[in-house]
């Protein structure tokens, strides 16, 4: 009986592994092969590192190093917007968790509603708003909408409401802290885990956001990487036969495309590793008797 159960478990796990891991593996191996080898050779064979550097040369040469500009743009947009998110969402969550002002419940409900609304639904109104503020074409046109992150507010709210005992704040108040110092010296240092969490989610959301910048930015030198990737895609002959055969030689094929995609993932992975450290261990242990 036990061996049957074990066998069944292995089969199920194997099916899932093949289904989910295979595409990722394929993607990682793709830049090591030439475009021809990619479609004719075994899907999980390894090509050569020479092919990887060749693919990078082609990618980097595309449109006068514009790939680097796109990565730079994405970093600028995501970091600036996330900085604004942290500066606003953490105090907002704190206020919602411990405040007793009129309209608190309403604000919480609104936060939830906006949080579950698909971001794409807001793109058109945001575009019109930015247009009437004459911001279209400036970097603020991307950063400001990215800075609106109700999920971060909600995370901070949940954290404060459940993990930080109100007694701690009362202790700070009787120890001579005004409301600002209570936040600055007690509530904020305790929020480390949720700061890391909001930082991570906000950064990833901004980094991966495609539709908003796609709709708002006209100048390709202002593209973030996600919009740039779609530009690359449409420059690849196998996806867009009209391209490549024309006057200029762009040298963007499937391995270059795969490499671009992989590079676009790296910043997210780094941010994840950094914020994960702060997430692992809660900070509040020992504050109050459990």
């Amino acid at each position, binding site marked *: 009986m036990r061996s049957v159960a074990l066998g069944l478990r292995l089969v199920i796990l194997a099916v899932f592994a093949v289904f989910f891991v295979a595409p990722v593996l394929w993607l990682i191996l793709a830049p090591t092969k030439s475009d021809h080898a990619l479609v004719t050779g075994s899907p999980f064979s390894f090509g050569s590192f020479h092919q990887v550097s060749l693919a990078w040369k082609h990618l980097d040469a595309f449109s006068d190093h514009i790939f680097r500009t796109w990565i730079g743009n994405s970093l600028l947009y995501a970091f600036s917007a996330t900085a604004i998110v942290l500066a606003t969402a953490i105090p907002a969550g704190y206020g919602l968790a411990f405040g007793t002002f009129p309209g608190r419940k309403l604000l919480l409900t609104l936060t939830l509603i906006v949080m579950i609304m698909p971001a794409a639904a807001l793109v058109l109104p945001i575009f019109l708003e930015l247009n009437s503020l004459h911001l279209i074409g400036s970097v603020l046109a991307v950063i400001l909408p990215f800075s609106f992150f109700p999920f971060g507010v909600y995370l901070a709210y949940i954290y404060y409401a459940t993990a930080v*005992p109100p*007694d*701690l704040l*009362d*202790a*700070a*108040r*009787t*120890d*001579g*802290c*005004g409301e600002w*110092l209570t936040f600055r*010296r*007690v509530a904020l*240092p*305790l929020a*480390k885990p949720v700061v890391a969490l909001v930082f991570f989610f906000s950064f990833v959301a901004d980094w991966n956001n495609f539709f908003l910048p796609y709709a708002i930015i006209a100048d390709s030198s202002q593209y973030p990487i996600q919009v740039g990737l779609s530009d690359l895609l449409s420059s690849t002959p196998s996806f867009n036969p009209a391209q490549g055969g024309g006057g200029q030689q762009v040298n963007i094929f499937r391995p270059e495309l795969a490499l671009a995609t992989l590079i676009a993932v790296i910043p997210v992975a780094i941010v994840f590793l950094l914020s994960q450290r702060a997430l692992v261990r809660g*900070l*509040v*242990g*020992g*504050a*109050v*008797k459990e």
Partner: protein
Amino acid sequence: MAEVVFDGVSKVFKDGTRAVDELSLDIADGEFMVLVGPSGCGKTTALRMVGGLEEITEGNVRIGERIVNDLSPKSRDIAMVFQSYALYPHLSVADNIGFALKTKRVPKEEIRRRVLETARMLDLEPYLKRKPRALSGGQRQRVAMGRAIIRQPRAFLMDEPLSNLDAKLRVQMRAEIKQLQSEVGVTTVYVTHDQVEAMTMGDRVSVMRKGVLQQVAPPEELYNRPRNMFVGGFIGSPAMNMLEATVSRTNGSTTIVAGEMSVALSEPTLASHPALQAYDGRTIVLGIRPEGLNDAALAGADGRPRLPARAELREALGPEVLMHFSVRARAAVTDEIRELAEDAGDDRTVEQLGSLERTRLVGRFGAQTRVREGDTIEVALDEGALHFFDASTGAAIVDEAAVAA
């Protein structure tokens, strides 16, 4: 240091609950005042109003010369010790203790000196660099105390600071806190639901019930002269026995009858309870402290009244034996008694208690008693341990003023 005065203070919550009802209480400069009562009696709310953590609905709270109603907690110059300790988890023990001084921008060198001094007082020196999570419960409690005493504030507010410690540590800390307080001489308001803590620590004790102050008195007076049935039942462990009884006066002598037992009151008892005369023929509640009930076999022929009883449960404590026994009499059933039973975790309903033919009493018997469970015994009653309460108002029947209209 300063006196703390409640002047007709009430707290009404948004849902209409009156948590504290017209509390008037003067706490003298340097006094150790304990607020005690069952959970939900408003004692913690009263304390938090002094600290500025709870808005005052009516009346005034005064600390020293200043009415503090509208002052923020930081401007009141009081230190608070929380039941949960509320230590700052991200700060070391030293930074926890010095937190308030840093807020006041005291020079670093002085903070260091005073933290060290405080840590010495509390035996915390070896732990100064640790975070709270690396401390035991008793150490955390001492850090919480240190955070308060380093301040030299106008008053200490303590909200059940010992209730999270185990029994042995609690007894030790009880004495330490009391000693610390008398050394630093800071006015202290101490909230607890533990009447033993209240009795052992307080210069005076305030008993509260449902937001209303019942009695303020030094511990001995509270124990010996409870103003009403609630105070009598709440203070003392084991609790005062309560029986339904009637008063009957026949040719000059006054007798208290409760079921099978009848006690003819002596002259001194009558003299100290003149109001009892007016209760002739009426039902009262008779309270008997456990120490007033002893094994008749040990008492000898001293002329004290005897009650026939059946031993039910024997709890040997060493120097004495707590004997639970039943007598033929009705247990008194009032709101107070229902509340006290609930507070003590007795889940029998009062109706059950009242319908019992026999009522259980507790007596403190001498250690030499040979009584065993199931024995039919005689219990000697000490008249001095008797208390008389009006059955409808619950007030102690002492002098004329206590007689119900």
